[in-house]
């Protein structure tokens, strides 16, 4: 046996690599080589915030154009590019990375793990998202002539017909398809990581039914991502080959079927909606109990509702296609399955209200955002039920009513929950509290701005205003309401600015109060360690004895169910804090995930410009990155 061990050791200490192994865990360079789930989480979150601002600016330009009837601020071509990029950015570069970022940071902490299962793959996933985002936005460069302009949904044959047809000029759909395929690679790797981490790295005693709801929802999201991404990747490859190699998957002249694309896109697209909203549901399932000082009402029901939504989400895709002519039997079936989704969703809403009921409600900024989530998401859910009334949907689809609906779900739902989550968790990440006064301004301006922007859109849609139109004629009676909407959009922008100021001043400039380990009297394991947590998260891996384990180490209940603080409350935090981390082996930093991801960028340009040189460069860089990564040990023995 010693011979085997020696052999392993000789392999792992032998370093035939071209690049020296990075060692530092501090400084600018360490961010490029880190495999620490926390640093990667921060980078995901930062990237998502940057693109939130970018997509917000795109939205503001759209709103300025629509402020007046027959607006002339933007050309038709620019408008079409902006709404395409706004949607694509919000879904793929804000919603998903934001949820993945929060989960990257907190899932290991909440399950008592020291890192994710595949730390380098985790870094790779992030750098692929950066590469994909860079690629997509490089289409704005003046000589490229290729800002995506086919909508975030990219319907065929508009997008798939070869460029020479003149249906949709420019290289937009090429940048869009290739960019989304790249982003899909990133999402898939992070999904694999979450599934394995959550299933395998839970601390001893943390059974599935003791697992925090946020972690549960991320598990469901990871599975949805894993199964949804291949579907859109197939569809995108088909569009790409139709455009560039004369394939005719979607060309009716040659026996292809344009509707096939819609089936594929929405078979991805609808689960994608739940990929976006379930993390939000997970976040408020954490914050509501903490700020009500009560356990989540009906934990099992909330978890199973989330799983049910995950399953049902696969059976409703054609409700995006009620006007396409699928026939009465098919649309009846999809109308009914759409109604079914309202049931587990409604259960969750009632259980959240039950959680707050008779609690001791602390109206912190985080709690206000969480309550705002319940209210706004409910409105989005109810307008969703109206869409299942198929005949009515044939009036509402592709109007501003739908725009209002999904912004209530994704902004009123996901983004409000995200803000709630950030106010709740950023003190753990940076060790400082965000300013509560500024936070409340942030909340109220956001709530007002949001409703002023999106509520009137319901009316515009019901009054016949179609979406994706760069101008509307005067005399249709939509102008006044559109002006209200534009004003609302600027209030959202102002509110976002307040948030950024709060983050920069309180966290960046460290003006915020010191957070301490457990500022909210939290329930889950992340609050048992220091703020920010050490690289290894926990000096001693916690032994979990119950759901909300950290809470139950601080409190017990008397016969009437009232809280009784335990004298020994929070004992293992002290042990953690005093530990210097010596002897805990963490994975070593690595440059190769970044190298491998960087290789995708020239490959993307090769695909769009049909050029050999970037193809060779891309294959070389990617090949080198993957090969060197493959022979590099996870943990450098010499360190």
């Amino acid at each position, binding site marked *: 046996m010693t011979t085997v061990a020696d052999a392993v050791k000789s392999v792992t200490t032998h370093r035939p690599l071209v690049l020296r192994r990075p060692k530092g865990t501090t400084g600018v360079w360490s961010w490029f080589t880190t495999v620490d789930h926390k640093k990667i989480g921060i980078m995901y979150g930062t990237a998502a915030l940057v693109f939130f601002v970018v997509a917000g600016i795109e939205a503001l330009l759209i709103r300025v154009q629509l402020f007046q009837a027959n607006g002339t601020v933007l050309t038709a071509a620019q408008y079409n590019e902006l709404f395409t990029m706004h949607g694509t950015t919000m879904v793929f570069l804000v919603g998903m990375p934001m949820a993945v970022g929060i989960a990257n940071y907190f899932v290991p902490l909440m399950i008592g793990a020291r890192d994710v299962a595949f730390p380098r793959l985790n870094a790779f996933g992030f750098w692929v998202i950066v590469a994909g985002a860079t690629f997509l936005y490089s289409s704005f460069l003046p000589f490229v002539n290729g800002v995506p302009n086919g909508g975030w949904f990219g319907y065929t044959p508009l997008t798939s017909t070869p460029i020479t047809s003149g249906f*949709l000029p420019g290289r937009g759909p090429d940048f869009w398809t290739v960019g989304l395929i790249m982003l899909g690679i990133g999402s898939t790797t992070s999904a694999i990581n979450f599934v394995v981490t959550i299933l395998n790295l839970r601390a001893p005693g943390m059974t599935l039914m003791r697992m925090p709801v946020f972690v549960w929802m991320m598990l469901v999201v990871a599975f949805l991502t894993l199964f949804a991404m291949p579907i859109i990747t197939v569809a995108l490859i088909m569009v790409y080959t139709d455009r560039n190699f004369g394939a005719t998957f979607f060309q009716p002249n040659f026996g292809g079927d344009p509707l096939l694309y819609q089936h594929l896109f929405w078979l991805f697209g609808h689960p994608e909606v739940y990929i976006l909203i379930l993390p939000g549901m997970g976040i408020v399932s954490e914050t509501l109990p903490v700020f009500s000082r009560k356990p989540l009402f009906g934990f099992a029901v909330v978890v199973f509702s989330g799983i049910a939504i995950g399953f049902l989400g696969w059976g409703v895709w054609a409700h995006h296609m009620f006007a396409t002519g699928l026939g009465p039997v098919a649309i009846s079936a999809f109308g009914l399955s759409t109604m079914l989704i309202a049931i587990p969703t409604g259960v969750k809403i009632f259980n959240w209200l039950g959680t707050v009921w008779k609690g001791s409600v602390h109206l912190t900024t985080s709690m206000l955002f969480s309550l705002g989530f319940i209210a706004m998401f409910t409105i989005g859910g109810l307008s969703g039920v109206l869409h299942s009334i198929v005949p009515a949907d044939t009036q509402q689809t592709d109007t501003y009513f739908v725009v209002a609906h999904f912004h209530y779900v994704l902004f009123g739902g996901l983004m409000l929950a995200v803000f709630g989550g950030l106010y709740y968790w950023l003190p753990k990440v940076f060790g400082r509290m965000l300013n509560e006064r500024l936070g409340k301004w942030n909340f109220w301006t956001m709530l007002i701005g949001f409703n002023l922007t999106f509520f009137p859109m319901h009316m515009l849609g019901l009054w016949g205003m179609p979406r994706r139109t760069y101008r509307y004629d005067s005399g249709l009676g939509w102008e006044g309401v559109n002006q209200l909407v534009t004003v609302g959009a600027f209030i959202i922008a102002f509110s976002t600015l307040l948030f950024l100021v709060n983050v920069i001043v309180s966290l960046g400039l460290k003006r915020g109060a010191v957070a301490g380990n457990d500022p909210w009297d939290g329930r889950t394991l992340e609050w048992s360690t220091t703020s920010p947590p050490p690289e290894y998260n926990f000096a001693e891996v916690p032994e979990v004895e119950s759901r909300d384990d950290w809470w139950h180490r601080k409190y017990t209940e008397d016969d009437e169910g009232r809280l009784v603080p335990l004298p020994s409350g929070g004992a293992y935090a002290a042990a953690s804090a005093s530990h210097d981390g010596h002897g805990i082996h963490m994975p070593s930093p690595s440059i190769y995930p970044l190298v491998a991801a960087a290789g995708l960028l020239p490959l993307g340009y090769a695909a769009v410009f049909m050029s050999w040189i970037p193809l060779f460069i891309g294959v070389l860089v990617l090949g080198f990155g993957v090969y060197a990564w493959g022979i590099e040990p996870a943990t450098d023995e010499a360190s």
Partner: protein
Amino acid sequence: MAALAALTLALAACSTESGPENGQNPLRPKGTYAKDIDNLFTPIFWVAVAVGVFILGATIFVAVRFRHRKGADDRPKQLHGNTPLEIGWTLIPALILAVIAVPTVALIFDLAEEPANPLEVTVVGKQWWWQFDYGKQAGIDRKIVTADELHIPTGRDVKLKLEACDDSLGTTGTRPNCNVIHSFWVPELTGKRDVVPGLHNTMKLRTDRPGTYLGQCAEYCGLSHANMRFRVIAQSPDEFQQWVDGQVEGPAVPLSDAGEATGLFTKKFQCTNCHTTEDSSISVYGPNLTHLASRTTFASGYYELTRANLVRWILNAPSMIPMESENCRLPERPMCVGMPSFTEDTPPGYPVMTRAEAEALADYLLELK
């Protein structure tokens, strides 16, 4: 709070009939089927509003009522759940939905039923305008091809065959004779139906009220999707028959007798590449202009048909409706969509149109009643 205020605003706004009388408002239905849809939507909408107000109210109530006050007891009773309650709020929404589902499915099947003895019109979606083909049928002696304005008789079902492929065009080079997906929508008459190349969708319209109803393409179809509008003009059966009789006639002014315009139209600016003014029964690339002057609008129904608008259009159409038409007149780059400008970015060696020439063309076209 803001949401609640906005909701009250909506309550005030959304009685059965609300919003602007703009000819395009589904909440002011004028067609038989739009009314059916509205009658289904309205009660369910109010149920949704009631549920929404209840949950919004509950959210505000729990936040305010159970707010922690300084110095008060911060140790609430720990409730972990309540199974009967949870079963209750699973079943009640399920029951509400079951009640909603019945009329919904019933109307889906009603709307899918074939109309009896309808007028049949083929609707062809193009980038970015609509062509309407009336086939030979009772009362219509030969095929009529027109654009932008769909005439229908009142009191009779109209069956629309929705096509994105125009077989009569054939294929030129790599340009397919099939267009992209459009969606045919006349909000006050009925819900929308997509026009999908390769699929032969149909839909039905019916109204008892003469009038003009606005329509709009409702599926994003490229650059000028926003401008792809049209009108439905509903007339009494007699007036409709008069319109049909006018359309089947030959042109009011034969092209050969159009004076200066003859040469401009056929040779100098080659309008005949895409248009015809001589035969209202054929489909060509651009709108059939044989009876242009019988229409009230032109250019995807976006502009009123006036001499000033028409002159402007003939000189520089892409300045009024953005189109992908820069290369239209170049023989080596035939791929373009829409009408080119004859005054801006004209290809080298090609004639530039003068205002007088445009006026001559407009005057000729306006005679084509």
